[in-house]
């Protein structure tokens, strides 16, 4: 079937075979390799993308299921100010080591800040509990989300 959806702000129409997972469509046919596959079963969050602004695992959703909806991947950082602010905060706070978890972390964090611009440390931890990181020990990732929250609030206040 032909599916139509919005991907990082642009309209896409593409033939999607019934059993194709979203992650396979993104990585293998659309060459958006920022989305990573870790476990392939919903446990690591490396494959996180935003579906209508909410984080989901692209390894657990069929491409056909995003028909008519809005998908944002880490490549959307170019067109989305909130994502960019979170990305910058990750760099500044030193929250990236091998980087495999980073795209998923940034997307989950951006979704959190959209729903809750000033989350507590505990709320940050809970929101990111579906994103595993083998390298950083998480603290610097939580720091980055706090930093991004300050930046976004400051920007909003100065407008």
């Amino acid at each position: 079937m032909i599916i139509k959806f919005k991907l990082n702000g642009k309209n896409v129409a593409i033939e999607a075979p019934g059993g194709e997972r979203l992650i396979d469509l993104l990585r293998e046919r659309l060459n958006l390799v920022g989305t990573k596959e870790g476990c392939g079963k919903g446990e690591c969050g490396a494959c996180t993308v935003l579906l209508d602004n909410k984080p989901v695992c692209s390894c657990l959703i069929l491409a056909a299921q995003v028909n008519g909806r809005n998908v944002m991947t880490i490549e959307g950082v170019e067109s989305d100010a909130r994502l960019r602010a979170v990305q910058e905060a990750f760099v500044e706070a030193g929250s990236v080591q091998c980087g495999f978890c980073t795209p998923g972390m940034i997307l989950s964090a951006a979704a959190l800040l959209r729903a809750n611009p000033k989350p507590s440390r505990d709320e940050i931890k809970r929101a990111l509990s579906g994103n595993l990181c083998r390298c950083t020990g998480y603290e610097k990732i939580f720091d980055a989300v706090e930093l991004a929250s300050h930046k976004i609030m400051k920007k909003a206040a100065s407008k």
Partner: protein
Amino acid sequence: MISVESYKRPETIAEALKLLKTGKFGIIAGGTDVIPQMRHTPARSLLDIGKLGLDFVRENDNTVEIGAAATHSQIQNNPLIQRFLPLLSTACGLVGSWQIRNRGTIGGNIVNASPCADSAPALLIYDTKVVLLSSQGRRSVNLSEFIKKPYLTVLTAKDLVHSFVCQKGDDSAGNSFIKLGRRQAVNISRMTIAVSLVRDDSNKITMAKIAVGSVFPTPTRISELENKLIGQIVSKELFDETADLAADLMIKASGVRWSTPYKKPVLIGLMRRALVGASGIKEIPA
């Protein structure tokens, strides 16, 4: 890529029931259970229920009806559910991760019928009925009879779960939901306990509902414990005895197993904690 023979996403329930009548389709909702399972199973034809408008939550006189395709996130955050079915809102808020809650549905959770399905003990507390549709018509089954054994329900390949009809909880009840451990963490049996209690001014228990997951083969209400509590005055001794009785019932049902030395004290400890929590009394009299 998973192997799929065909994929259909009907837009009306009538159309969905017609496809199901062929017996060839497997239903997919959020896909969080189905998609990982399908990587190891032969090709199937999938019927996606995502366009059928089954993600509603509505209030009737004494009940709240939840569409089968409502997600855990939706249920966690829905004001009607928070008010009338607070244990269900809590339970769904503890499922998996944010990503899983955004996709996983209550229908998928119950039909998958895992002994540790988090929504099941909460739904049992609210005396939930499962509404099924097929080309033959509509029927309604008590949740306690819907799940037959681990990973098996009364559902046939021609049935669609339409919704769950839950009795509103008592406004004055104290509630407690405890979930132990991590899903799939090797060798650790997870457990869930849901308790709802009402007591009068003299601390006499006038209503008690207790349901557990991963204690018996399927999620279960434990009427023996409820009957033991009703009419009694809250005391440490009463709660201790009730928790001990829970463990006795578990062992009676499953026999002594390799996991019993772990599960027995854990069940006793958690049951006590859940009872104290639901009683709303900080210092339980001895």
